């Protein structure tokens, strides 16, 4: 029998620092809810807005797979690996922070807000050599189709991370039916609605920025209920094994 956990958008953590507004699906920084610490290896899903000209100064990360998905505008990323990159809407950025990396990230616009999802996944290996990657999304292949962005395989579609995790994204016409089959038995699937709305397995309605974690299901059946609805699907191990 499948188990589900629903995170309605309005029940997320919220931090407003003026220049930074963040909605947190899981406990993060000042937001601590022992009932919402993680979904398997998925530890952070922050929905952030950064004002123009603002951002995060140099700070470290280690032993975490960090995925940024810009939804509006772009961010300038600079790190001590020698990377200076702009990641904009239509792209995604992946950092395997491993044994440690320092980076800064600022809004690339002086006056327009940048909006992005920042997602942290526990790695399956400790202290790897840090790695940075950035890929273009393909809006044509994402139309009415869950397009793979991330997998554990260096030969897979999209980019890869140090975890048995898969990320897919798609935007769908109203009434489009589709399904997601978990790649590995025992993994959980976290659905996050970026925009619009979906019906899950014919019973659960998800609106924009709602999240639904599902475990123990062989196939998840979905229907877009508004035109242009966009969905992020994150499949992760539910039991952490870190070497």
């Amino acid at each position, binding site marked *: 029998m499948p188990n589900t956990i629903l995170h309605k958008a309005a029940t997320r953590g919220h931090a407003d620092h003026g220049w930074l507004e963040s909605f947190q699906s899981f*406990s*993060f*920084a*000042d937001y*601590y809810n*022992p009932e919402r*610490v993680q979904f398997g290896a998925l*530890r*952070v899903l922050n929905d952030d807005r950064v004002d123009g000209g603002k951002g995060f100064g140099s*700070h*470290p*990360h*280690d*032993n*975490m797979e960090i995925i940024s998905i810009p939804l509006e505008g772009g961010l300038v990323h600079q790190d001590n690996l020698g990377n200076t990159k702009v990641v904009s809407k239509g792209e995604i950025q992946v950092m395997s*922070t491993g*044994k*440690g990396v*320092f980076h800064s990230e600022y809004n690339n616009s002086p006056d327009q807000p940048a909006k992005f999802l920042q997602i*942290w996944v*526990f790695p399956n290996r*400790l*202290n790897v050599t840090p790695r940075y990657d950035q890929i273009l999304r393909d809006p044509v292949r994402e139309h009415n189709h869950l397009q793979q962005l991330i997998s554990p395989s260096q030969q897979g579609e999209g980019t890869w991370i140090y975890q048995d995790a898969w990320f897919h994204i798609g935007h769908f016409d109203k009434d489009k039916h589709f399904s997601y089959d978990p790649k590995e038995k025992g993994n959980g699937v976290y659905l996050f609605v970026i925009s619009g709305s979906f019906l899950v397995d014919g019973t659960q309605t998800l609106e924009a920025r709602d999240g639904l974690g599902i475990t123990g299901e062989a196939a998840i059946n979905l229907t877009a209920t508004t035109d242009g609805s966009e969905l992020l699907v994150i499949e992760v191990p539910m039991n952490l094994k*870190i*070497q």
Partner: protein
Amino acid sequence: MDIPTLNILAIGRDSAILEVVQRLINSHEHWVATIVTTDKAAIAAFTQQRHPIVFVCAGVTAEEEQALKERLLRLDPSVTVIRHFGGGSGLLENEVRAILDHKDIHIINA
């Protein structure tokens, strides 16, 4: 358990990251961090002062973590030795609060 100050020991191999972890811990009133880069220094610091929480940070392998945990638990069975993930501020406070809740530790000045 009521304590006046929460002493946290952080061990890692990357001094620059540890210094950030120390600054973040010390930014909380009544939280005091000691940072070390070797297992020997960790044992010495732990022997000198009781630390209810020991964070294992970047660069320490799983095997080193396990060996250190076993040694520290022999010195104080109530210690929580746990891996700190992320390196920065995002999860640190959460990790501490989870331990304080689980162990029913209260900082009496807070």
